[in-house]
C-alpha cells in the first residue's frame, strides 16, 4: 500500500530541515513585517525599505537557484538560458502592472507610455486580457512553461545534452533578448517596463505592499523547497538521478528519459517564471538585459557555489553570491567582476560540491561521529565521475 502523500512529504525532509523551515517562516512572516512596519525608523532593529527590497529580491533569486538545481543538480541538464524564463515571468506580470498604471502615465493615455511614444493606437493582440490579475498569473505560468515544454520536447527527443544543450539554451535567451530589444516587439524595447503604480488597486511603493511581496516571495521559496525536496526523494527523483549519472543505462532498462527530463525542465521554467513575477514589482523594472546570457550563467554559479544536488546548497549559494554582489557593487564596484570571475574559477577547481560539500568534508575531517545529513544526499555527478588524476592534481594546486 502506498504511503499517504502527507506522510511522504513529511518524511522527505529530516527533522532539522523542518525546524529550519519553521525558523525561516518565523523570520519572513513575523519578524520582517514587524521590524519594517511596527518599529520606528530610528530604532536599532528597524529594517529599512532598502533591506526589505534587497532580501525580497534575493528570495526570488533563491527560487531560481532551486529551479536550476532541480535540473542541473538532479537531472544533469545545464541550462544557460534560465534567465529567459525568469524574465518571461517578469514580463508577463509586468504587462499587468503596466495596465494597472491606467491613465497615470506621463501621457495620460489608456495605452502604456511606450506605445503612445511609438504612436500605436491600440494594444497588440498578445496584450489581450492583461488588465486581469488572474489572466496575468496564468500567463506567468503558461508562457515560460509552454516555451520550455516545446523547446525541451524537441531538444530531449533528439537527445541533445551536456554542452550542446547548454549552448543552444544560451542561443535561445540571446535570440529572445534581441527580440525584446526591438521596439516593434511591443514590450517597451530597451527600457522595458517601469514606473509601476499599483497592484490590485493598492500602491506598489507602500511599506505594506513591500512586506506582502516579501512574504509572498518567502512563501514561494518555502513551497518550492518543499516541492523540490518531495520530488527528489520520490521515485521520480531517483530516476532523474539515474538519468543524470548514466542516461544510456536508464534507457536500456526500459525508462524513457524524455518524459522525466521534460517534466522537470518545464517545472523548473515555471518556477523561474513565478520568481520573475514576484521579482518585477519588488525591483520596479524589467528590461531585456535580464535575458542576457551573462545573467543566466550567473544563476548556474549560484548553484555551483552553494553545492549542486542539494537544494539547500542552491539557496545558500544564491544568498552568498547576491549579498556579496550588493556589498561589492556598493563598496568596490570595479572589483566585482574580478571577484565573480575568481569565484567561478575557484569553485569549479576547489569546491566541486560547493559550500555544502566543503561543510560536510570539514565535518568528516574533524572526526564527526556520523556523516552529516547533507553528505547522505545523492552524490553529485562531477564528484562521482571525477577521475583520480584530477583529484591528485587539484591537491597539488591547493
Amino acid at each position, binding site marked *: 500500500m502506498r504511503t499517504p502523500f502527507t506522510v511522504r512529504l513529511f518524511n522527505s525532509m529530516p527533522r532539522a530541515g523542518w525546524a529550519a523551515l519553521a525558523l525561516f517562516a518565523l523570520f519572513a512572516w513575523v519578524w520582517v513585517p514587524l521590524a519594517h512596519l511596527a518599529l520606528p525608523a530610528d530604532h536599532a532593529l528597524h529594517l529599512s525599505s532598502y533591506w526589505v527590497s534587497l532580501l525580497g529580491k534575493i528570495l526570488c533569486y533563491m527560487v531560481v537557484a532551486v529551479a536550476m538545481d532541480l535540473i542541473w543538480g538532479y537531472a544533469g541538464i545545464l541550462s544557460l538560458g534560465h534567465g529567459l524564463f525568469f524574465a518571461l515571468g517578469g514580463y508577463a506580470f509586468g504587462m499587468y502592472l503596466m495596465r494597472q498604471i491606467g491613465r497615470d502615465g506621463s501621457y495620460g493615455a489608456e495605452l502604456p507610455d511606450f506605445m503612445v511614444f511609438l504612436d500605436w493606437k491600440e494594444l497588440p493582440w498578445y496584450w489581450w486580457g492583461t488588465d486581469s490579475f488572474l489572466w496575468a498569473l496564468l500567463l506567468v505560468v503558461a508562457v515560460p512553461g509552454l516555451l520550455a515544454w516545446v523547446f525541451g520536447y524537441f531538444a530531449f527527443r533528439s537527445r541533445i545534452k551536456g*554542452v550542446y544543450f547548454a549552448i543552444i539554451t544560451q542561443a535561445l535567451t540571446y535570440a529572445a533578448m534581441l527580440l525584446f530589444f526591438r521596439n516593434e516587439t511591443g514590450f517597451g524595447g530597451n527600457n522595458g517596463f517601469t514606473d509601476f503604480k499599483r497592484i490590485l488597486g493598492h500602491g506598489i511603493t507602500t511599506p505594506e505592499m513591500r512586506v506582502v511581496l516579501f512574504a509572498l516571495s518567502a512563501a514561494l521559496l518555502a513551497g518550492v523547497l518543499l516541492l523540490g525536496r518531495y520530488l527528489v526523494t520520490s521515485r521520480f527523483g531517483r530516476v532523474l538521478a539515474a538519468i543524470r549519472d548514466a542516461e*544510456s543505462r536508464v534507457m536500456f532498462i526500459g525508462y524513457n528519459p524524455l518524459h522525466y527530463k521534460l517534466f522537470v525542465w518545464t517545472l523548473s521554467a515555471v518556477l523561474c517564471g513565478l520568481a520573475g513575477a514576484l521579482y518585477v514589482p519588488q525591483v520596479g523594472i524589467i528590461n531585456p538585459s535580464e535575458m542576457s546570457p551573462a545573467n543566466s550563467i550567473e544563476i548556474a554559479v549560484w548553484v555551483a557555489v552553494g553545492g549542486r544536488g542539494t537544494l539547500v546548497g542552491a539557496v545558500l549559494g544564491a544568498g552568498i553570491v547576491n549579498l556579496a554582489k550588493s556589498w561589492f557593487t556598493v563598496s568596490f564596484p570595479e572589483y566585482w567582476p*574580478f571577484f565573480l570571475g575568481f569565484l*567561478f574559477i575557484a*569553485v*569549479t*577547481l576547489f569546491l566541486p560540491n560547493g559550500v555544502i560539500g566543503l561543510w560536510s568534508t570539514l565535518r568528516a575531517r574533524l572526526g564527526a561521529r556520523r556523516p552529516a545529513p547533507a553528505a547522505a544526499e545523492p552524490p553529485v555527478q562531477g564528484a562521482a565521475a571525477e577521475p583520480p588524476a584530477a583529484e591528485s*592534481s587539484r591537491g597539488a594546486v591547493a
Partner: protein
Amino acid sequence: MKKQASHWARRALFLLPLLVAFLLLAAAGKARAALDEATLQGLGAADFGERIAAIEAVGATGGERARAIIAALEAGELGTAGGRVVIVRDGRVVDAASGEALELVADAVDSLRVNNRVRRALAVANAALDLESGERARRLAAAQTLRDNASEVVLPVLERALESEEDDAIREVVLLAAARVNLNADDPAKRLKAVTALGQSSDAGVKTLLEPFLDPASEPDAGVREAAAASIAAIERRVSIARNIGTVFSGLSLGSILLLAALGLAITYGVMGIINMAHGELLMIGAYAAFLVQGLFRAHLPEYVDWYVLAAIPAGFFAAAAVGVVMERTVLRFLYGRPLESLLATWGISLVLIQAARVLFGPQNVELANPSWMSGGMELAAGVVLPWNRIVILGFAVFVLLLVWLMMNRTRLGMFVRAVTQNRAMAGCVGVPTARVDTLAFAIGAGIAGLGGVALSQIANVGPAMGQGYIVDSFMVVVLGGVGQLAGAVWAAMGLGIVSKFLEGWAGAVIAKILVLVFIIAFIQKRPQGIFALKGRFADN
C-alpha cells in the same frame, strides 16, 4: 509634361542655327567664330528659362570666348549695357562676343544675378566645355555631370564627344547622357533609340527616368513603350545582380570573421572537449595587441605606421597564445572530462580578462586607424562598393585557414592533435604526449583567436567587452560545422555569413540574427553532430 515639351521645343528651335554652325565647325576643326549674337542676347534675358538655355548653349559652343564668358558669369562679372552683353573686369568694359574693349563706364552695366538654377546651368556649361578638354579625369567628371544634368542644348557636344572620344568608360557615360536628352525628343525613333540605349545602365536612378515611358498617357508610341519595358527589366536585372554580388560579398566577409573567431574554438573544443567561454576575450587580447603595436609604431617608426598591421599579426598571435597557455596550465587541465564545469570556469576567466582590459586600457573603445592601403574600396556598380579592409580580411582568413590546414595535416603535432581528438585514451596508449598536445593545441587555438582579433580590430570597435558579441556566434559555427572539423567550420562560417546577410536585406538585422539562431537550434535538433560528424561507435556522445 505638355508644358515641358513645348519648353523643350522652344529651346530646340532656338538652337537650330547653332547646331548647324557647330557641326560644320567641328568637321572643319578650325578656330571657332564669334558666338552667335542671339545666344548671347539670351544671357541677358529677363526669363531665367531662356537665360539658362543660353548659358548651356554658350557652353555647348565651346572655345576660348565661351569659356571666358562662362567664367565671367560665374565670377559675377557679366552684365548688360545698352542692349549688349558685356564683361566688366578691373573697371574696364569688354564686349562679351568679340572681346573688344568698349567705351563704357563700369557703373552703367547691370550685372547678371546668379541663382541656384543658373549655377546648375553653369555647371552644365563647364562640363560641356570640359568634355572637349585634354585630361581624362576632367572629361570623365564632365561626362558624369552631363549624364545627370544634360539638356537638349548640349546634345551637339555629346554627339561630337561620341564621335571623337576614345576612352570606352567615358563614351559609355556620354552615351547615357545623350540618351537621356533624347528621351524628350519629339521623334519617336530618337526616343526609341534613347530608351534602348538607357537599358545598358546599371543605375537605379535611370529606371525611374524610364518609368513614365511605360504609361500610354505620356508615351504615345507603342514601340517606345515596349523598349522602355525591356530596358527597365535589363536595368533591374543588372541592379539586382550587382546587389546580390554585394550581399554575397558582405556575407563572405562576415563569414571570414566568424571563421577566424571559430577556427581556434574548433581546435580547442575538438581536442579537449572544453567549451572555452573566454574565447571571445582571446579575440579581444589580439585586438589590444594590435592597438599596442600601433602605438609603438606611432612613437618609434612613424614613417612605417601604415604597416603596423603586419607587425600586429605575430604580436596578436603570441599575446593570445601566451594567455591561452596560462589558462590551460593553471585552470583548464584540471577540468578535463568535466565540460560543464570548464564552461563555468572559463566564463569566470572571461570576466577577469574583460575587467583587466577595462582597468588597463579604460572602459572606452580604443581607436585603431586603418592603414591607407586598406581604406577605400572597389566600386562594383553604382552603390555597390567592396571595401578593401574587408577584402584583405577575407584573404587573411583564407591564409590562416591554409596554415591551420597545413598544421593539422602536414605536421607531427597536427597528427597528434587529430589522434587526441579522435580517441584520447588510445592516443595516450600509443605514446602521444597528450598533456603536451593539449597545451600546444590550446596555445595554437588561442593564437588563432588572437589573429582573429587583429583582423577584427580593422573593422570593428575595440573595447573590453568586444569578445562577448562573438562567443555565441562562433559556438554556433563550431556546433553547426561539427566538432573538430575544419571543413565543417569553413562551410558553417561562410554559410552562416551569407545566409545572415541575405536575411538582413530581407528582414532587418535583428530579425535576421534571431532567425539564424532559431535555424541553428532547429538544425541541432535534427543533426546534433553538425554538418560533418566524426564517425564513431559511441552510444553516449
